[in-house]
């Protein structure tokens, strides 16, 4: 049997494909939205996964250090080391910085760590780790800096000695890594003028021995929950396991963003289905005479339904293919990480197919109501 849908599309191929690709752009945006969500979840876990502690110790009654501000005395590390099962304690600072680069500053997320220890919360792709406390800095390639570049931060100039790749914060800002004490100065040291004024007032304001969190590694055989309870009980600080920290990040920190993206995705899907419905309806209404002739010469409702449903399906398939190509081609050009997962693409494809089938219902209903007698002149 002649495939009427195929012949009709071939007859106005340019118009059909252009329309489908227009819808495809919408579907591409839906796919990118899903990819942005995946990227957010991925980005949020890069820093915690690179640090990979067994426990996080943060300020009491906070969800720090990523979801809430947290401040602790650095010397707490000595008493933390005294707990049974605690093998290593790594004091850490976290802060957002604006790094000058050319005309525009770059927003980065700085992690301060004890650079002279064996603890390395990053994976270098070029250069070396910080070896001496002499204003050395490790930056992500996303900042655009290269090895040897000089960067002014606060009152000091730092030299780029190492590069990481795709290390970003939960907000998508590129990471930079500093020695702990230099990072503490950047975050906690007041300006010379304020220090002078405070000295006159009799206040001491030069102490910077504050950190935002401690990353603890446990000795084998110790249960992280038990150690966490002990630290919480005796030191009155909040202690989270790595899984709890992961939950805080994904549920608390990016939940609203995820919902926002989910809403946008739903709206775009609804808009896409309305557009496909209108296109299919308009295409069907443009063929009233032809459908009346087909009915008059004996075409069954099944044949007419098949024609419209196939056109709608093909529009959905072409639109999805166009959208997927658009999304995959543009994913790396977005400022934030966009991760396109085949399973997400498959799910969206199935949704588009369902939408296409539903979208054809209006056109089919209209087509079946067409009176074959309208093909005959009065």
């Amino acid at each position: 049997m002649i495939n009427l849908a195929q012949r009709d599309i071939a007859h106005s191929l340019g118009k059909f494909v252009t329309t489908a690709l227009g819808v495809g752009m919408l579907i591409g945006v839906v796919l990118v939205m899903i990819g942005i969500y995946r990227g957010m979840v991925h980005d949020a876990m890069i820093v915690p996964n690179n640090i990979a502690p067994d426990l996080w110790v943060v300020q009491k009654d906070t969800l720090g250090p990523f979801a809430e501000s947290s401040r602790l005395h650095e010397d707490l590390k000595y008493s933390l080391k005294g707990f049974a099962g605690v093998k290593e304690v790594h004091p850490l600072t976290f802060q957002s910085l604006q790094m000058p680069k050319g005309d525009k500053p770059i927003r980065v997320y700085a992690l301060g760590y004890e650079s002279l220890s064996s603890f390395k919360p990053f994976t270098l792709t070029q250069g070396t780790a910080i070896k001496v406390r002499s204003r050395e800095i490790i930056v992500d390639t996303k900042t655009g800096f290269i090895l040897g570049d000089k960067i002014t931060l606060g009152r000091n100039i730092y030299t780029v000695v190492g590069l990481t790749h795709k290390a970003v914060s939960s907000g998508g800002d590129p990471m930079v890594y500093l020695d702990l004490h230099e990072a503490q100065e950047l975050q906690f040291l007041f300006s010379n003028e304020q220090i002078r004024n405070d000295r006159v007032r009799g206040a001491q304001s030069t102490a910077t021995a504050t950190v935002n969190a401690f990353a603890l590694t446990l000795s084998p055989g110790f249960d992280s929950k038990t150690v966490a309870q002990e630290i919480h009980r005796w030191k009155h600080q909040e202690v989270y396991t790595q899984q709890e920290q992961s939950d805080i990040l994904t549920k608390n920190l990016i939940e609203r963003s995820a919902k926002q993206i989910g809403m946008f995705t739903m709206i775009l899907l609804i808009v896409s289905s309305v557009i496909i419905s209108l296109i299919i309806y308009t295409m069907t209404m443009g063929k009233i005479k032809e459908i009346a002739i087909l009915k008059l010469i004996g075409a069954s409702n099944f044949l007419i339904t098949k024609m419209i449903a196939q056109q709608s399906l093909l529009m959905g398939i072409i639109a999805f293919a166009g959208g997927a190509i658009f999304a995959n081609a543009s994913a790396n050009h977005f400022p934030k990480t966009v991760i396109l997962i085949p399973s997400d693409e498959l799910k969206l494809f199935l949704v588009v197919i369902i939408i296409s089938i539903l979208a054809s219902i209006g056109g089919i209903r209209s087509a079946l109501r067409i009176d074959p007698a309208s093909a005959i002149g009065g």
Partner: protein
Amino acid sequence: MKKRIISVENLSKTYGEGENAVTAIKEATFDIYSGETVALLGPSGSGKTTLITMIGCITEPTSGKLSLDGELMYDQKWQIYDTRRIRREKIGFIFQAHNLIPFLNVLENVTIVPQMNGIKKATADQKAKELLDYLGVEDKLTKMPSQLSGGQSQRVAIARSLANNPKIILADEPTAALDGERALSVMNLLRKLAHEQEVAIVVVTHDERMLPLFDRILRVEDGIVKETI
């Protein structure tokens, strides 16, 4: 011996109800036999189209009886469930404007009806080619309707109407869009088909110049069908 193909008995069609009721056809009674060409003549609004759509099982009559090729179609109500099957299998339609499907080429426009009847594509193609050859448009097989002249389009439409080996051809002013010479050519062709292929042909026409080409003339005036000698 001529076979009775169309049998119409007291067939009526009324649109609307009560005071607004308009009777388009009043108790029409006539028979049409195989090989006959019959003109349905009458002014606009006289009920010709209503009559032809009832015979074509498109419009449901209000009362009376209708039989096609010996099969009772209507007797106070439809006697068959699928009227489209009857149109597919027994009736060919020719329209004033050729009404070819614009997205199908000439060959596909002709083969679509037999293919809907389950005829294999190769067989349908062969038959269509023979018909198009017979009608003098065999060189237009792959052309689209938009690439044909009015006369060529009408010939393709005639080929389509014959593709399912119909017993009846219902034509609605098939020559109205053609100039005098082409109109005469098409009418002669229909007459030839009726006689050669034993098809009953009913043609709605306004054109009294064509009347000598018909075997019989049915005049429709104010819904009343009368045979004219």
